[in-house]
């Protein structure tokens, strides 16, 4: 297991480097002059040149990339053009909100998705199965922003149960979490079902039945753990999905999280802020993947004992 962790960490490093490089290339080698964008077009060329020199934007890109990396490692992601505040500070303030939203949504997704998937798999092709799977596919197919608007219309305007937008209390979290969780519960349900069905076809399930176990214990004791192994991995990836899905949710519900920062940064052409938000989210996703793999390794004795990546 120790070797497995080391190996998995070692794989993450080049990915992280690649990610920073891609972000850098995308946002720094943009056609158009960021300074001109930042300061407006009426600024005199001399001023623009001076600012460029101050910001070291005249250096060749490899030099800028190395500086970007070393600054980032020191926790410095630059300053927002628009808000005139350090990017790291803005992200640090926004992150807890996004995390709360993502976790609440994940909870919703799992609480709906896993039971629905299990019920479907127990009686495949039955009415129950068709109902849940139709529902799951609908969930996958619903645009998050649309559900959000629908919920706002129904629960806030028509019923008056929940606040329309903003993020001030736990009550404000309910609607966004439901919206975001609903869209990914379909994925969880479908995955749980197919994984469980797949496991139920294995020989060791027949062995368990041959021992005299009834259907319930067969599923609970022998099938579920195997079936949930891939689900767990996807659930960790889901957090990533939810973090990016929260871009839309946050902007609809006007929640001051990382996603809304990213959207705002694009609207204001605030390059350092966008770069910081993207980098930050991606690092979170990589960490999520890492956690998923470690969890998988911990749950699956074939990896736990041998240290191999036996998947």
């Amino acid at each position, binding site marked *: 297991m120790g070797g497995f962790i080391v190996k998995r960490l070692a794989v993450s490093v080049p990915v992280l480097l690649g990610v920073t490089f891609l972000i850098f290339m995308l946002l720094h080698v943009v056609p158009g002059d960021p300074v001109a964008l930042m300061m407006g077009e009426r600024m005199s060329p001399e001023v623009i040149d001076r600012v460029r020199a101050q910001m070291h934007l005249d250096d060749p890109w490899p030099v800028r990339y190395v500086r970007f990396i070393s600054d980032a490692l020191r926790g410095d992601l630059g300053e927002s053009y628009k808000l005139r505040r350090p990017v790291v500070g803005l992200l640090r303030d926004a992150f807890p909100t996004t995390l709360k939203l993502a976790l609440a949504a994940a909870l919703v997704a799992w609480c709906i998705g896993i039971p629905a998937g299990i019920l479907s798999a127990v009686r495949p092709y039955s009415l129950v199965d068709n109902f849940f799977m139709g529902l799951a596919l609908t969930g996958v197919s*619903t645009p998050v922003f649309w559900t959000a608007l629908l919920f706002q219309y129904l629960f806030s305007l028509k019923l008056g149960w929940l606040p329309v937008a903003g993020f001030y209390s736990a009550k404000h979290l309910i609607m966004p979490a439901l919206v975001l969780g609903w869209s990914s519960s379909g994925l969880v349900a479908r995955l749980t079902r197919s994984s469980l069905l797949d496991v139920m076809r294995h020989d060791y399930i027949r062995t368990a039945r041959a021992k005299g176990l009834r259907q319930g214990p067969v599923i609970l004791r022998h099938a579920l753990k195997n079936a949930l192994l891939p689900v767990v991995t996807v659930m960790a990836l889901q957090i990533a999905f939810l973090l990016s899905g929260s871009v839309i949710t946050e902007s609809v519900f006007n929640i001051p999280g990382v996603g809304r920062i990213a959207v705002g940064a*694009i609207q204001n052409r605030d390059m350092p802020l966008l770069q910081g938000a993207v980098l930050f989210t991606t690092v979170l*996703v990589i960490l999520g993947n890492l956690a998923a793999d470690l969890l998988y390794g911990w749950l699956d004795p074939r990896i736990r004992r041998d240290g191999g990546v036996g998947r």
Partner: protein
Amino acid sequence: MRPGRDPKLIADELPPLVPAEAGDDMAGETLWGDVVRAFWKNRAALAGVGVVTVIALMALGAPWFLRGDPYAIDLDLRHLPPSWDHWFGTDHYGRDLFTRVVHGARISLVIGLIPAFLSTVIGAVLGVVSGFYGGKTDFWIMRLADVVLAFPSLLLAMAIMYTLGASLFNIFIALSAVGWASTSRIVRSQTLSLREKDFVEAARALGVSRGKIVFRHILPNCLPSIVVVFTMSIPAAIMQEAGLSFLGVGAQPPTPSWGLLVSQGKEFIFSAPWEAILPGVAILLLVLAFNFMGDGLRDAIDPYMKD
């Protein structure tokens, strides 16, 4: 019993039906024939095909059967609720929303098909190359895929759109650049398992060149999963475009992109809810239809992807 000199002609026998495969349906002429037959039995999938066909026909025929202009502004007709004259009502410029939604279908279909096709082709080529040639090529392609997959796809697409500028054409590029990675992983893993198959080994033993092995043996066997991946990436692309346009980094006004329509409608969600809700229903319907289709196709093809 006679010892087996002069083997009798035994071609007219069929394979024995062993109980282990008693439930399977794989005895037809060709793969695709069987797939079509299995697909036709799937009612949900057929309903999907029906909905997609209707939407596609409407989109194609829009200039002929809709008299209205999707861009025609009439400030006297602002925010009209759905009625016989305006099925979906009108928007804040008094444009007929139904006309705009139908025209928007053309965008969604094009967005669904082109980036899905591009990303599938790119992903399939890279996946086969990666899996078959292995070594350094494989290493670098897969690391690139890792990097792309590490990004939440919407954020990466947003960043690309930021760089390239918001336009319909750039959406093609952004979505293709995001979508190829997962396809390449799927195709690569399939290539890896095919590469070890005896029939590929037999071709090597015959001295068949690597390129011909790829085209005769690897690609045709990857094709079922490539088709499934392609079908599944259509609704994904439609959703992403809608998301980008909703956020304002996709299609730009006055283009009647569905995401944009919802985004414009959200300003009036309390006074004129249909403006946001109805274009959203269109997205849901089309994406759902494609998903049902893709699901049906996958179920029909699945039994053939194992060998």
